[in-house]
């Protein structure tokens, strides 16, 4: 007999995420079909260029997957700490130990980045190679229960294998971006040499046009996927700690502090945005356009989703 559980999957979120992934797959199929179509229509072989882009793009994707922990740590300036290294390290290790025991997960490595910006991220290709990094700014501003909410959110990213999922999802966009560049330089430098072969020029132009469209569409879809995965990490994190309000209060504190961060920190932190607890750029959530380009959902949206978890946990037994 299954044990009684208060856990109920969020169907709305599941449906939206599935739809996003389906669309990404559809774009991928359309992309492949368009490339084959271009080749067939102009009796020109674009296979070599496409193969080159796939191999190069695949190399990038696999490289970033395997070195994601090292790259992210180096960019954020984080150093891995043991439980006895400092008072802060002891505090995080204590929280991580308990959350891992609660969730039955292997313990990730713990790192501290010396930055005033209150933030945290988790990366690594799987749970055994995961590293969790928090900034000193976050440690200083948050109480223990809020910090625990943030760490539970990051550990949910690890449990959901978000680095793998997002890398695979971005693969298409990487290839499209590479093809745009190859086609562009092909036009630029190859134009004179191939002046008697008009087909090659047309193929390059068509490849570039298709790649630009694919890049734009997949970029938006990836951002959408990223936002949904943030919401599910919030949800799983809150279910794990049983304290959605602590996570809400951490979110309000962190996003409120974001506005006051010096610009220099903002710029250096930008490449890491996708892994952060809250984005470093202070986007205006009410502006519709910035919302669809954003890696993270708006604060209002995240708080509303956490309200649902709160109601779910508070339901009287019966």
């Amino acid at each position, binding site marked *: 007999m299954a*044990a*009684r*559980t*208060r*856990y109920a*999957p*969020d169907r709305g979120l*599941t449906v939206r*995420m*599935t739809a996003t*992934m389906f669309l990404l797959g559809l774009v991928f199929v359309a992309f492949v079909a368009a490339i084959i179509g271009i080749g067939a229509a102009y009796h020109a072989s674009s296979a070599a260029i496409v193969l080159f882009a796939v191999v190069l793009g695949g190399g990038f994707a696999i490289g970033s997957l395997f070195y994601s922990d090292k790259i992210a740590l180096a960019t954020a300036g984080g150093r891995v700490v043991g439980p006895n290294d400092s008072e802060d390290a002891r505090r995080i290790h*204590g*929280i991580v*130990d*308990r959350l*891992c*025991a*609660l*969730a*039955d997960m*292997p*313990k990730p490595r713990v790192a501290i980045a010396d930055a005033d910006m209150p933030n945290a991220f988790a990366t690594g290709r799987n749970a055994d190679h995961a590293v969790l990094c928090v900034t000193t700014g976050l440690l200083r501003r948050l109480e*223990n*229960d809020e910090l*625990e909410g943030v760490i539970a959110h990051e550990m*949910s990213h690890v*449990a*959901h*294998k*978000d680095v*793998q*999922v997002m890398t695979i999802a971005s693969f298409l966009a990487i290839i499209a971006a590479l093809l745009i560049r190859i086609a562009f330089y092909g036009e630029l430098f190859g134009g004179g040499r191939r002046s008697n072969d008009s087909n090659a020029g047309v193929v390059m132009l068509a490849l570039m046009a298709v790649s630009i469209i694919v890049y734009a569409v997949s970029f938006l879809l990836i951002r959408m996927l990223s936002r*949904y*995965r943030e919401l*599910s*990490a919030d*949800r*799983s994190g809150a*279910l*794990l*700690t*049983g*304290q*959605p*309000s602590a996570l809400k209060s951490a979110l309000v504190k962190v996003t409120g502090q974001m506005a006051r961060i010096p610009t220099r920190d903002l710029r250096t932190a930008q490449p890491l945005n996708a892994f952060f607890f809250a984005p470093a750029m202070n986007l205006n959530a009410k502006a519709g356009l910035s919302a669809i380009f954003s890696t993270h959902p708006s604060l209002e949206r995240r708080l509303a989703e956490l309200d649902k978890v*709160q109601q779910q*946990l*508070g*339901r*009287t*037994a019966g």
Partner: protein
Amino acid sequence: MGFLDTLLGRTKPVQPKLDDLFALPSAAVTLDAGAGFKPTGSGSVCFRPVEGRSFSDVQKDVQELLNASSGKEGGLPVEVTKDSYGFNWLVSSHMSDELEALVTDLHAVNSSLVDNGFGPQLLCTLVAFRDDQERRLGLIYLYKRGTFYPFAPLSGERRDNALELQVKGVIGSDLKFEPDLARWFPVWGAPGL
């Protein structure tokens, strides 16, 4: 976690394994014979409180249930303490020769929480031991793994690793021990230890 769960970014809360806890009384006999550690009679259950009325009602019921049963046998009332990490410890104290009654008490806490759907909130249970030289030892049961590990605190937040490994050698075959040493996390200042 299955492929679909990964794809959809969802984790189901882990349900606790409760049955292995009952292996404790027989292992305690071996521990006394092999290392000279006797149970102190106190033990505690550590769980993560959930916000909201429903959880505090369950916790109150558990406390009343245990107090009612210990009242008949002249035991001490159970107490609830909150640690600095926000976890609650429900401490039950018995006479040192009543290990079975203690384990029954601890199990009552587990089953009440599980029956009300709060099983995923259980973290660990701790049973305290002491030897003639007043060295402290806690045997900790991890609910999600269904495994035990020893925790021997010294003064100043240091652990007696030698003693812990010795204990593993003595009762390692009686109890399901946690094989991954990285999961033997310390519980400094755990109530009841």
